[in-house]
C-alpha cells in the first residue's frame, strides 16, 4: 500500500470495518425473521424475500401518499412506514399461515414448494399493482448522506440506521423469545407440539402469531432496505439464498448462532471483496460455507441434544 499515509489507511480501515458491520446488520435483519420461521417452526418459507418486498412496497406507498397529501410530514414518515411495513407483512404472514402453512407442518419439503408458489403469486401481485419497473420511495434527507467523525472518514447514515434497527429488532426478538411467557410457549410448542397442546397452550394460535411475527420482521427489513437498495417485483429472490445460508450456517434452532453466522459471513465477504472481485468473493464465501456445512452439518451453534 505504498503512497498512502497512515491517516488514510486508518480511515479506510475504519470505513471498511463499518462496511462489514453494515453488511452484518443487513444479513442479520434479513435472517431474523427466517430464523424464527425456519429455526423455531421448521417451516421453509421460500416467500421470505417477497414478504420483505411487501414491506418495501408499503414504504413506497406511504412515501408517495405522504408526498402527495401531507408533504410537511416527509421528514418523519419513514419511521411510521417501518411500523406499517411490519404490520402489513405480518398480516400477510398471518393469512398465509391460516390458508396455507398450517396444513403442512408435518411436511417440511412440501412447505418449500407451497411457499415457492406463494412467492410467484406475490411477485405477480406486486407487478400488477405497482408495475414492472423498480420503484424507490423518496427518502427523508436526514437518512441520506454521511457523518464525518474526522476529515477522511465518512460513515453512511443509512447504514447506521439499518444497524440501529437491527440491534433494536434483535433485542426485541430475544426478549420476546426468551424472557416473555409468550416466547416460552413458542419454544414449548416447537419442542413438543402434542405436549404443549395437552398443557393448555393454544398451539394453533402460537403457530399463527409466530409465523406472522417472522413475516413482520421480514417486512421491516424490506422497509429498511429501501434506504440502500431497490424495490421491484423480483427483488425478494435476490435475498432468499443469502438469508437461508445465514440461518442454516448459524445452526437453525439457535438465534445466537444466527447472529454469529451473519457476522462471520459479512466480515468474510466484505474483506474478500476488498481484495478480489465481487463475483469471486461471493463464490469463495458461499463455497467455504458449503464446505464447512459438509463437515459440520448442524451449523455453528447447534445445541447438543440426544436424539
Amino acid at each position, binding site marked *: 500500500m505504498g503512497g*498512502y499515509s497512515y491517516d*488514510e489507511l486508518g480511515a*479506510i480501515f475504519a*470505513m*471498511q470495518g*463499518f*462496511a*462489514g458491520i*453494515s*453488511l452484518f446488520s*443487513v444479513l442479520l435483519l434479513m435472517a431474523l425473521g427466517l430464523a424464527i420461521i425456519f429455526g423455531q417452526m421448521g417451516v421453509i418459507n421460500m416467500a421470505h424475500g417477497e414478504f420483505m418486498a411487501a414491506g418495501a412496497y408499503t414504504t413506497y406507498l406511504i412515501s408517495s401518499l405522504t408526498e402527495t397529501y401531507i408533504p410537511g410530514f416527509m421528514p418523519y414518515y419513514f419511521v411510521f412506514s417501518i411500523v406499517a411495513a411490519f404490520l402489513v407483512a405480518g398480516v400477510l404472514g398471518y393469512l398465509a399461515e391460516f390458508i396455507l402453512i398450517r396444513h403442512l407442518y408435518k411436511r417440511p419439503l412440501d412447505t418449500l414448494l407451497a411457499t415457492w408458489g406463494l412467492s410467484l403469486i406475490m411477485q405477480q401481485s406486486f*407487478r400488477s399493482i405497482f408495475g*414492472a*419497473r*423498480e*420503484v*424507490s420511495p*423518496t*427518502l427523508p434527507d436526514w437518512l*441520506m*448522506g*454521511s457523518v*464525518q467523525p474526522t476529515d477522511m472518514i*465518512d460513515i*453512511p*447514515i*443509512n*447504514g447506521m440506521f439499518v444497524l440501529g434497527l437491527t440491534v433494536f429488532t434483535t433485542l426485541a426478538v430475544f426478549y420476546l423469545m426468551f424472557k416473555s411467557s409468550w416466547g416460552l410457549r413458542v419454544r414449548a410448542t416447537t419442542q413438543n407440539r402434542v405436549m404443549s397442546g395437552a398443557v393448555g397452550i393454544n398451539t394453533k394460535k402460537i403457530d399463527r402469531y409466530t409465523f406472522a411475527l417472522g413475516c413482520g420482521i421480514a417486512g421491516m427489513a424490506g422497509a429498511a*432496505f429501501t*434506504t*440502500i*437498495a*431497490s*424495490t*421491484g*417485483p*423480483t*427483488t425478494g429472490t*435476490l435475498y432468499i439464498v443469502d438469508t437461508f445460508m445465514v440461518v442454516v450456517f448459524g445452526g437453525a434452532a439457535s438465534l445466537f448462532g444466527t447472529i454469529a453466522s451473519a457476522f462471520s459471513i459479512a466480515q468474510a*465477504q*466484505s*474483506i474478500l*471483496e*476488498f481484495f478480489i*472481485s*465481487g*463475483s469471486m468473493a*461471493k463464490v469463495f464465501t458461499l463455497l467455504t460455507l458449503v464446505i464447512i456445512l459438509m463437515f459440520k452439518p448442524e451449523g455453528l451453534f447447534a445445541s447438543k441434544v440426544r436424539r
Partner: protein
Amino acid sequence: MSDKSDSRRLWGRRKVVRAISALPLGIILASQLSLAAPATTTGQAVTDDTVTVGILHSLTGTMAISETGAQEAEKLAIKQINEMGGILGRQIKVIQEDGASDWPTFAEKSRKLLVNDKVAAVFGCWTSASRKAALPVFEKENGLLYYPTFYEGLEQSKNVIYTGQEATQQILDGLNWVAKEKGAKTFYLIGSDYIWPRTSMKIARKHIENVLGGKVVGEEYKPLGDTQFGSVINKIRLKKPDVIYAAVVGGSNVAWFKQLKAAGITSKKQTLLTISVTEDEVLGIGGENLEGFYSIMKYFQSQDNPNNVAFVKAFKEMWGDDSVIGDVTQAAYLGPWLWKAAVEKAGTFDVDAVVAASEEGDIELTTAPEGYVKLHPNHHLWSKARVGMWKKDGQAEVVYTSELIEPDPFPEGYQ
C-alpha cells in the same frame, strides 16, 4: 485423436442410429421431412392490404422492467405508420410474443413468428443473451430483426439491424469529453459482471491508456443483482480516481447509487460517468441520488428538437403522462421507421431485398427524435453521442453532443 478419424466414426454411428430410428418411424419421419419444405420468406404474411410483423419482448420475468418501454415505442411507431397509410399501401398488423426473460423462449418465439406466422420483420430482444439465442433462428429462417439496445458490438449479422449504439459509439466520445472538460487522468471502472460491461470496460481501458494517456486505477465487477457496495466504495476512496466510470445494471444499479450518496460521494466531490443509466433507470434510482452525475447515451428525453417534442407528446398520449422515455425506447422507436424506409426503397417485403436496400448505406431518418440517423452498410446506425447531466427531477440536461459517429462493431485496436 484427430478430428478426421473421429468424424468418420461418428458418421458410421450416426448412420446406424438413423437406420434404427428409421425402421419403426420411417413413415412418420418421411412425412415430417416432406412437410419441411425449405422456408423462404417469400411466403410472408403479406396480403393486398396488410403486412404482419412481430414484436418480441419480455412481458414477464425479470427483464419485463426494462423491455416495457421498447415495445411501447415500437407499437407507437407502427400506429403512426399505419395512420400515414402504412407501408407500400398495406396496414401493419402486429403479433406480439412474450420472451418471458427466458433466452430459449426468445429463440422459440422467434421461430414461431418466422415459421408459423411468417412475419415480414421482428422488432425485439433486449439483452444480448436473448439476441444471441434468437440469432441462429433468424439466420436460418432468413428473418429480419430490429434490435434496439446499446450493446457490446462484436457482431454483425445479415439478418439483424442494430438501432442502438455499439460500444465504441457510446464510449469513446464520452471519455474524450470527460478528459477534455474535466481534465480527468485517472479512472475507476466498475460494472456488473457480464459481457456488456466487461466488453465496454475493455474498450474504455484501451482508449484511456492508449489514446488519452490516462490511467485505470481500478476495475471491478459485481455479480448481477448484488446490492452491497460498501467495500467497493472504500476501494474507490482509497484510489481517489478523477472519474468513476460505471456500467452497473438492474437492481444493483439502484443500490450502487444510493450507497454512493450515503457514503458521501456526490457530484460535488466526484465526477461519475455512467453508460447504464437512462430515464428508465432513474425512476428506480431516484433523481436525488443521481444529481450531477453524467450519462453517455445517444438520446435523452429532454432534447428539445421538434422531432423529439412531437415524439414525447405522442408517446405520452399513447402510454400515459407519467411514462418516461429512455435511450433504448427511442432506439426501438426507430426500428419500424427504418424498416419502412428500407421496404419502400426495395419495393418489396422480401427480406433479402430489404437487407440489400439497407446495406446501401443511404437509408436515413431525418425525423428521428434523437436527430438525424443514417444506416451504415454494417447494419448499425450512424449516430451522435450525448452526455447528459442528471437533475433532481429525473431528467438530464444535455451538456455535450458529438458529431455523427460511424458505427464500428469490430473496432481495430480495441479488441
